[in-house]
């Protein structure tokens, strides 16, 4: 199925979620004039390459490839693609981890867009403090700028205790000091920065410190993964949006006694899996999010 950007924008403006951050205002993206600094990017998350359980996903070897094909089928290609962690499923064997991360890299090399950004999840980096990830994909925390938006990638997984750590917090503080209070900021993390559900480990132990540093800035959005489902939350004026995964969905926080992958439904294959497009307009602080299924169907 072909997805063109007009569909995406229409969906984003009318049917799908539009989220404002800080000074952002809601608006009809479908009617907005396209500017040279308007762009969209794609977020994929929790691909868990190497996971194997047919009761949960009988197409575990094919799901990521289908998502790659769906992104490639966009008529207008995104400016960049962001993977928000858990590229691979955990293995206790260092050699297997390297193999899985390498296989993942080979599969996503089929993406037409070559501007791809990565960050690890705890499955990739929690057992070796990100050593193999860094070898293959580079730093686990960094910043980049694109068309007037400042992107900050934070690592809250390389420490198995799920902290950002004082060094990274100081680095974040120094980076933010260079920005005006109304700068457009998008933060990528794997785990939620806020206490979403501590019983299931859905938080960052020192995430409140990062939120405190971001608080003075009026236009901040956090995009993250980890929980394998859409979730939208605000802490003050900061918007936090969790993305679907691409291997198995997880139940809503606290909805079942024990956290476990949601079993595959043969009547609705790939249900709960997918990726998202994020649309950013130069003169509007708000960003628009459109959700897509694995095969590129609009959700």
């Amino acid at each position, binding site marked *: 199925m072909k997805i063109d950007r007009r569909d995406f924008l229409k969906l984003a403006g009318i049917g799908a979620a539009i989220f404002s951050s800080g000074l952002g205002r809601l608006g009809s993206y479908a009617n907005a004039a396209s500017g040279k600094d308007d762009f969209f990017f794609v977020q994929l998350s929790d691909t868990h390459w190497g996971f194997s359980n047919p009761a949960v996903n009988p197409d575990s070897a094919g799901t990521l490839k289908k998502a790659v094909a769906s992104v490639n089928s966009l008529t207008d290609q995104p400016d960049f693609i962001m993977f928000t962690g858990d590229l691979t499923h*955990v*293995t*206790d064997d260092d050699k297997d981890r390297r193999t899985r991360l390498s296989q993942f890299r080979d599969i996503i090399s089929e993406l037409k867009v070559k501007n791809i950004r990565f960050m690890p999840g*705890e499955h990739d980096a*929690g*057992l070796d403090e990100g050593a193999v990830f860094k070898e293959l994909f580079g730093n686990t925390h960094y910043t980049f700028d694109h068309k007037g938006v400042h992107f900050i990638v934070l690592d809250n*997984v390389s420490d*198995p*205790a*799920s902290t950002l750590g004082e060094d990274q917090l100081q680095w974040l503080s120094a980076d933010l000091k260079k920005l005006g209070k109304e700068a457009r900021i998008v933060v990528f993390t794997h785990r939620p920065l806020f206490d979403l559900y*501590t*019983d*299931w*480990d859905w938080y960052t*132990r020192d995430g409140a410190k990062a939120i405190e540093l971001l608080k003075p800035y009026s236009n901040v959005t956090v995009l993250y993964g980890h929980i394998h489902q859409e979730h939208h939350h605000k802490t003050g004026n900061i918007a936090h949006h969790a993305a679907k995964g691409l291997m198995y969905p997880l139940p809503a926080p606290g909805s079942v*006694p*024990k*956290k*476990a992958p949601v079993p595959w439904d043969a009547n609705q294959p790939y249900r709960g899996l997918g990726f998202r497009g994020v649309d950013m307009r130069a003169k509007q602080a708000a960003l628009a999010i459109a959700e897509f299924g694995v095969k590129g169907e609009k959700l």
Partner: protein
Amino acid sequence: MRPWSMMVSISILVFITGAFLISGYALGEEKEQVIQITAKKFEYSPKDIVVKKGAPVVLEFTSLDRLHGFNCPGLGIRADIRPGKATRVRFVPEKAGIFPFHCDNFCGTGHEGMTGTITVTE
């Protein structure tokens, strides 16, 4: 009674009273329940713990392999469990119920299943 014999008796009495005071009995305090818990990939032993409401408890953790965590949000208890070092956490359960706990230091393939419960009885 001879003077030296009286002195010995007084010393013994002082020692016993002191020990009694230190143990907390003379102050009306209940003795702590010490529970030893080992952690290893990917289980706690014991994994189901029963304590009594209002009675002080000391959880004494030891890891048999690598860094693990202990997080029981319902009772507000968390600790890092490191190999080669006993970690003690003292608490007094103030509410009855069943409170799940889990490892919150990512430890490998079975991490998600490294869980247990503390049952607090009335």
